[in-house]
């Protein structure tokens, strides 16, 4: 086995095996050309496979130390990957809450719609993946603005409870509508981005790196938008004081619609990145994702953009840590427990601002 590794340049001069990743892959001669590098199993391989494992146990101690480090690193990458998606969705929540003080329950389901759009674009219409991505983002944006116009605008002066109930209603309408139209089962599609890279001894997928990169870029772009452009200034003004902003000549409807559009576009991007990691679409995929992203927004401080980013990454890392500890079935419970702790200890979140109610 050592000899077959030498040709690929995996061994060092001493002939010992440097990293566990290589050890796992090198049980059979690698087929070049396949992006995943997974060999084709043939009948009879079974015996060879199991004969190898006993040899493996002997040298396991050698690689355990290296494995732990790369294990931790890959868990961190996992956490950052899911955290990025949460962060993108949390941004949408934060922006909408900052502007009209509404918890848009339907936000998570916009992700679901984006995912189905991408699925049908690729599977039924056979569009180029890039075109499907753009289409998905476009559809998400349009849907977000449409929901705002139809359901939230008439209730702008209504008590917040009614608005919240309407948001819940829209969320379930989307979910059950999707179930009716597309069926309740999960639709699988080909992964858009494949391939792994070796980083610090762990297998990191390109999808993960892309996810983290895209979300950071998106967040920077959003910060620029909010701080430097006129529309961003309008958004900040409206969230500060709706009445005064109107007196200053800011078009309320336009600003709010724009906020929803940006938030939904980010959700659309988030859904595509989510699909890169888990290429399946189901009608209820958005609800848990949306809830967790909401927790992230609350954690970071609802109404605050950098807070949403921080909150997203924290929740993602928390989930990864809980799973790594072997308690993955309690993942959801842990996230909600964090929510409760945050709401009790510091309801405004890490970076949120205190809203005092005057009488």
């Amino acid at each position: 086995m050592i000899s077959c590794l030498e040709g690929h340049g995996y061994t060092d001069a001493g002939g010992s095996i440097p990293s566990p990743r290589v050890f796992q892959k090198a049980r059979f001669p690698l087929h070049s050309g396949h992006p995943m590098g997974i060999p084709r199993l043939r009948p009879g391989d079974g015996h060879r496979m199991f004969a190898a494992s006993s040899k493996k146990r002997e040298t396991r101690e050698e690689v355990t130390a290296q494995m732990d480090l790369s294990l931790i690193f890959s868990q961190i990458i996992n956490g950052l990957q899911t955290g990025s998606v949460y962060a993108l969705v949390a941004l949408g929540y934060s922006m909408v809450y900052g502007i009209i003080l509404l918890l848009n329950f339907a936000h998570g389901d916009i992700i679901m719609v984006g995912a189905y759009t991408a699925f049908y674009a690729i599977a039924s219409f056979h569009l180029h993946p890039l075109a499907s991505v753009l289409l998905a983002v476009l559809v998400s944006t349009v849907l977000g603005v449409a929901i705002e116009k139809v359901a939230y605008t008439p209730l702008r002066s209504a008590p917040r409870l009614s608005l919240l109930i309407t948001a819940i209603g829209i969320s379930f309408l989307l979910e059950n509508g999707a179930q009716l139209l597309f069926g309740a089962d999960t639709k699988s599609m080909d992964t858009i981005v494949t391939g792994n890279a070796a980083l610090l001894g762990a297998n990191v997928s390109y999808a993960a790196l892309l996810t983290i990169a895209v979300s950071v870029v998106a967040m920077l772009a959003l910060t620029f938008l909010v701080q430097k452009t006129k529309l961003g200034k309008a958004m900040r003004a409206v969230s500060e004081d709706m009445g005064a902003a109107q007196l200053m000549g800011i078009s309320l409807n336009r600003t709010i619609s724009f906020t929803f559009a940006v938030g939904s576009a980010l959700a659309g991007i988030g859904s595509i990145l989510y699909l890169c990691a888990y290429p399946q679409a189901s009608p209820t995929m958005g609800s848990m994702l949306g809830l967790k992203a909401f927790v992230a927004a609350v954690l970071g401080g609802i109404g605050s953009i950098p807070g949403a980013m921080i909150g997203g990454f924290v929740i993602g890392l928390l989930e990864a840590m809980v799973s790594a500890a072997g308690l993955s079935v309690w993942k959801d419970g842990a996230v909600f427990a964090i929510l409760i702790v945050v709401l009790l200890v510091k309801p405004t979140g890490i970076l949120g601002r205190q809203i005092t109610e005057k009488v």
Partner: protein
Amino acid sequence: MKKFLAMLLSLTLVLGLAACGGGNQPSGGNAQNSGGAAGNDAGNDAGDSGSDSQPSGGSDEITIALITNTTGDYAQYGIPVHNAAMLYINQINANGGINGKQVKVLEYDDKADGVETVNALNLAVENGATAVIGSVLTGATIALADATYDINMPQITASATAAGVTMIDADDPASEIRENVFRSCFIDPFQGEKMADYSYNKLGAKTAAILYETGNDYSEGLMNAFVEKAGELGLEIVATEAFATGDKDYKAQITNIAAKTPDVVYAPVYYGEAGLAIQAARQLGMTATFVGGDGYGNVKDYATAEELEGTVYCSGYAPGTESVAQFESDYEAAYGEPVPNMFAPLAYDAAMLMCHALEAAEAAGLEAGTDGYKQAVIDALNAIDGVEGITGTYSFDEYNNPVKSAAIIELTGGEEVFKEMY
């Protein structure tokens, strides 16, 4: 004015839904049958609160009930069961029915909810049903079995695999059996044992890891049986990992499993999750064979051929083999899509078994709907020995579970290929 408008709006909404009867089946197939029967029972129950349970309508019809979840979260399992059972009944009716009588099917949707199932049963009894095919998910089927047990109504299920469906107390081997409940699928413990056996004896595995879904009766049942059998055989379980329902991220669990380098990974979950798990494992460089249960049907659509190569699972249904070829083409002709999963042929066989028993009761000259008739049907089901179905040869053991061998399916070149019976 606004108040009036709102009232009118909500009333029209409700009435509009009632008026456009015969809902659309999402399967996109031929829904004429269900539309007709649905219109029938809407007419039946809406005004019928005064009538008692009556014997089957007319002496030229046998009425049975088909209770499945055609809407709701798990409709993708209920719809094939419904479609396949209807396919069989329609074929029987086209061939002259049973003993010259047409079989009338009362179709009910229970949304996989226990309360709805019992309601559907009560409605069926009111409308003169003499036997029940249903339900689909374990929880609903057990609720249904509790209710049919009280009235000694023969019941057969195509898909509920928990032991507790036919046994009153699943934990107690000497528990009372619900004599009137049968099933055409094998039970969870059977599958778990079978695959432990197969992994140890056929695949030559010495160590195994487990990845299962908590919150899922089926997954936990298979897992427990596997672990027990593995203990008997001497197959060492080196890692046990779990994920919660709805979870799609298994990297952490797979990482932990990979660290222990098992020979096989037993992952008794459904095809969607199985595909994701196998993908995650391959991405992390694991090459261990994945072994699964009958939930793996159609996993080929959820991961690439390379990733799935060598995966094995047991099933009640051997796709593409001779015995099922006719069924597969009939199903596609009737519903416009290929057989979606293994529940369809199992439902076909369930309907076949029920009709077989109905024939025996008819032959004894009893009147449909009476207690004597129902007992005769139950006795006939009990007596079945060697009846040929499309998924195997049937006979029932003392727990009313079928004695069948399992078909072992292997993923070869991206296709699910029948390997052998085991």
